[in-house]
């Protein structure tokens, strides 16, 4: 504490005595490992490109941790200028009108060019308010895809170039893999809540909640205990008991990646941004990439998957110099070349049309088969109200509840119907709390 005071005093004296001192812009983020290094590199490049501003990225842990740290900091008046908030926190951030400096307004105030139309449709749809204004800066958007181990497929007597398209095939392939001894388990999954519940609902055109999945207002209720979700959770339990599916843990499911890298599980479902990690860690096998499976008895035409990842929110309470720098930094971030590099090296979606076109022109997708699975999956067909996305207040907490109920399901203390009913009931209480508080 005292050291902070001294440093602060020292910095103050320094900035007062020298007009050359650069304005510092703190940027809290949730990118660890490979993604974190890439993010640091972007900040460093920006800092080297000019002398007026210094962007300081600070790793704050997981997405939920970053969000709660930001809120705690805001309450203490120590908030960063920029914070990376995952898509689940969007509802919470949108409701916090006094805390957020909307990006469209910031860019207009600072006279920087900013065209909402340049972003791909799922991104624009997700992060705009009802008047069509983009409230946060799109940065790293993702969508879940299927990763599989081609070597294990070959060992199990499967065609390594053919990934399972439907859940029936996932089950069938997994059984072959396990019985042939090619791997201990067929598949695992990161993010049970996001992938096996939210995206499952979107792909099968099932509502996750009322009022257009929450886009229509805060008086919404969860409805994810429908027959499709119940059937799927029931199947996951059945497959877990049979040893075809292994649980990767709550929230992001950290064990899922480990199980896949260690070749214990032949397939995993994870964010498209897991691609960087897969390529780096799949040293002894060749990974394959494919869209998420669907139930062909429930839908003939699977809908688009929904967005994940995060955007950059600007917080109130900084001085104008800082905001000028933030706007400059956002303009810098929006360059197609930089975005293309970020997208291609991480697996995040190309968030603007220009980035996607640049990638095509460079021949990137042809040279790297499977690298466009995510973008094709998220843009396929016409989005329905059920596949546009989900936006609820307290969604982080609702996801925690879903994780708990899923654990109860796997432990055998609840059936799929009971677990989902209970999650809906508890989740609705959160929604009522959120409605009352905002």
């Amino acid at each position, binding site marked *: 504490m005292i050291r902070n005071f001294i440093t602060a005093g020292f910095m103050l004296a320094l900035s007062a005595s020298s007009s050359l001192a650069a304005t510092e812009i703190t940027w809290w983020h949730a990118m660890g490992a490979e993604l974190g290094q890439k993010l640091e590199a972007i900040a460093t490049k920006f800092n080297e490109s000019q002398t007026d501003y210094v962007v300081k990225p600070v790793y704050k842990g997981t997405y*939920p941790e970053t969000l*709660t740290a930001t*809120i*705690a900091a*805001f*309450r203490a008046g120590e908030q960063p200028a920029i914070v990376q908030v995952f898509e689940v926190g969007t509802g*919470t951030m949108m*409701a*916090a*009108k*006094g*805390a957020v400096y909307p990006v469209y307004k910031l860019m207009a105030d600072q006279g920087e060019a900013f065209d909402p139309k340049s972003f791909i449709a799922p991104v624009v749809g997700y992060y705009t308010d009802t008047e069509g204004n983009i409230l946060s800066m799109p940065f790293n958007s993702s969508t879940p895809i299927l990763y599989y181990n081609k070597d294990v497929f070959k060992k199990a007597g499967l065609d390594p170039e053919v990934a399972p398209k439907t859940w029936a095939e996932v089950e069938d392939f997994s059984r072959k893999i396990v019985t042939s001894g090619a791997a201990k388990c067929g598949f695992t999954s990161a993010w049970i809540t996001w992938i096996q519940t939210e995206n499952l609902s979107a792909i099968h055109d099932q509502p996750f909640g009322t009022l257009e999945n929450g886009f229509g207002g805060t008086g919404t209720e969860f409805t994810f205990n429908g027959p499709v979700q119940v059937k799927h959770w029931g199947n996951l339990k059945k497959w877990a008991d049979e040893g075809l599916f292994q*649980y990767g*843990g*709550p929230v992001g499911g950290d*064990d899922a990646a480990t199980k896949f890298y260690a070749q*214990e599980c032949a397939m995993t479902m994870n964010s498209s941004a897991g691609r960087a990690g897969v390529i780096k860690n799949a040293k002894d096998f060749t990974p394959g990439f494919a869209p998420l499976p669907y139930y062909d008895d429930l839908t003939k035409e699977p809908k688009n998957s929904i967005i994940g990842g995060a955007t950059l929110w600007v917080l109130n309470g900084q001085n104008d110099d800082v905001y000028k720098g933030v706007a400059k930094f956002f303009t810098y971030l929006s360059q197609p070349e930089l975005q293309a590099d970020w997208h291609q090296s991480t697996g995040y979606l190309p968030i603007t049309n220009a980035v996607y076109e640049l990638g095509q022109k460079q021949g990137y997708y042809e040279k790297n088969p499977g690298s466009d699975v995510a973008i094709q999956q998220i843009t396929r067909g016409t989005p329905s109200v059920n596949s546009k996305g989900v936006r609820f207040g*307290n969604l*982080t*907490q609702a996801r*925690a509840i879903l*994780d*708990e*109920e899923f*654990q*109860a399901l*796997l*432990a055998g*203390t609840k059936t799929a119907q009971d677990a989902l009913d209970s999650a809906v009931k508890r989740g609705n209480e959160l929604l009522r*709390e959120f409605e*009352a*508080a*905002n």
Partner: protein
Amino acid sequence: MDTKRTIFPNRVLPYLLLAPQLVITLVFFIWPAGQAVKSSFEREDPFGLSASFVGFQHYARLLKDPLYLDSLGRTAVFAVAVTALSMALGLALAVAVNRLVRSGRVYTTLLVWPYAVAPVIAGLLWWFLFNSTTGVLAYFLGQLGIRWDHNLNGTHAMILIVIAAAWKQVSYNFLFFLAGLQSVPHSLIEAAAIDGSGPVKRFFTIVLPLLSPTTFFLFIVNVNYTMFDTFAIVDATTAGGPAQATTILVYKVYNDGYLGLNLGSSSAQSVLLMLIVVVLTVIQFRYVERRVQY
């Protein structure tokens, strides 16, 4: 017990000497506690931009919430298990070390080590040993036919946090018991030995009653430890899971308040937790202390 009355002529000095402690208590205890009571009657949005008074709504809801009542029961199980386990082990180790004449100091040093380990590290250590895929202990349990999986089995998770929490507290109990044992007059034990009582009888009729002040003190310290200080262990080991099977009250306060951003309910919970501990302490002093012989 007779009270000694000493008259100090200076009227200001005692207050001055007390002042630092009082200020610290005020700033670090009374004030935050007051804040907690205040916010337990309010509903606030996460960013603290607006707050409204809701009276006893948070309390009423908590007392009806099956998850909260479950958590209460789990905390009782946890507190009893950790206190019993760590005190019994601490005493057993102290008795064993007390018999050693020369190597006693070495054992004492070794046994105190766990206390120096940060709770998070202790939690992680046990989590690692019991990890269902890579843990050594989980492997041996598997050899014995027990499929250990604290990620899905609530009972396993509870056993895990009890072990981790007790392991850290054993050192503390051991030190106090050892000190207590060393202050038991040798003449009493020798006299009993001459009268023909065996070591077991000597222990239960002479040593244990003379240890009662130490035991009582440790009992209160241990109960408070399980109620408040075990947060980091739970967080690092099971994070309250699976399906809230290890969400003890203090973890629920954090979970609902910090992660869940439901500050009103979280404050109400911490007020209730404070009341529970106050009541427990009063009961302990009123009824248990009577059995203590100083």
